[in-house]
């Protein structure tokens, strides 16, 4: 069983973001189970969860649920200047091995 901590993008701050690199970073952001921060061409910063992207359309876009907002934002790739992985990676650090260790420790503590 693998007990090594899995790699996470948490805290990643890649820059500059443009061209092929932007598409690559967007893919990582799409796969990331934590919030990200987008900086747009007008200087605006958006904190939220990037849940969708489509680069197979005429104007590639990402979709983000901004923290505290009900409706998602759709943002063209062309407006994105930076993507930072600012939120906690909710898929990291809770491995099955860690759970087994906790469970065994709890059983030992209760004399089970």
């Amino acid at each position, binding site marked *: *069983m*693998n007990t090594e901590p899995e790699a996470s993008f948490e805290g990643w701050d890649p820059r500059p973001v443009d061209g092929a690199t932007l598409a690559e970073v967007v893919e990582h952001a*799409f*796969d990331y*189970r*934590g*919030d990200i921060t987008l900086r747009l061409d007008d200087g605006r910063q958006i904190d*939220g*969860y990037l*849940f*969708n*992207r*489509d680069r197979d359309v005429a104007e590639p876009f990402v*979709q983000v*649920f901004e*923290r*505290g907002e009900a409706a998602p934002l759709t943002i063209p790739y062309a407006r994105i200047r930076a993507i930072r992985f600012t*939120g*906690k990676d*909710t*898929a990291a650090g*809770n*491995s*099955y091995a*860690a*759970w087994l260790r906790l*469970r065994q420790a709890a059983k030992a503590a209760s004399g089970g």
Partner: protein
Amino acid sequence: MSVPISQMWTVAAYVLGQKIRKRMRYPLVLMLEPLFRCNLACAGCGKIQYPAHILKKDLSVEQCLAAVDECGAPMVSIPGGEPLMYPEIGRLARELVARRKYVYLCTNAILLKQKLEEGVFTPSKYLSFSVHMDGLREEHDEAVCREGVFDQAVAGIREALRRGFRVTTNSTLFDGVNPVQMQMFFDEMMDLGVEGMMLSPGYSYSKAPDQEHFLRRQKTNEIFSKMLSNPKRRWKFNQSPLFLQFLMGKWDFECTPWGMPAYNIFGWQRPCYLLQEGYAPSFKALMETTRWERYGHRSGNEKCKDCMVHCGYEATAVNATFASWKGLTAAARATLTGRL
């Protein structure tokens, strides 16, 4: 097999209707996820790893019903997340029953007894609680990463049955499962009085904590063959017999990911309930713009290589039942004799 005649008839008529219209791709079950939050954090589940503000979001009942109407599938499965934590689950169930959809409310049953006592649900032939049970007490509590859940689920099942509800179980099997213990589990569920059981091998979610215990194809065939090759007459399964035979290695099916499309707060999930490769804004867009040839066992896609999960193959099995005499007679024989 334990699917009620009226439900079998509805599904048969629907599938034959699709064939008459020569529709190559059609939905059979809508996987409707009104929320992602759950009161468990099972090791094999990759559905709940989201930031808190996402876990707090719900689909509205109106969004759910619009998805149901657009999709048109005769059955709706409500997984999640834990659907009994959805504030409007009673209203959603009533609306779906009124639309004569066969609803499988997939729950860990921790809250089931409480919700029944509160009068949230009314018994109906269209509504079934599909209780998550991954084995006997020790195996189940280990799978859901919390002790005591098996007993809570059993209490919920008993209460639901006492009140006249349809109750089925759904079990996800992982590597290391003991076929003999699973057979004991089947006996125990039948003793409880559930209508039928559903089985599926687990899927290796990339975000699930447990990546070590998912079944590969050959192992799946071996385990299901051991479990089901000599089934007791009293074991009832609430799923296609051809799907169970596929898990035993008796059929070579290809995945039909469009057969059980998934809708949640992000939209229509591409390509299936398990893989998250993007979202379409409508069911029509999902069906027309997803590049289906990239998915399935024969596609060469690594993510699909070992998958034999019900949401990809149960619809295939149902389609195969009505695609040839061989399929129809095999399903009829299994239904009548209980032999797989």
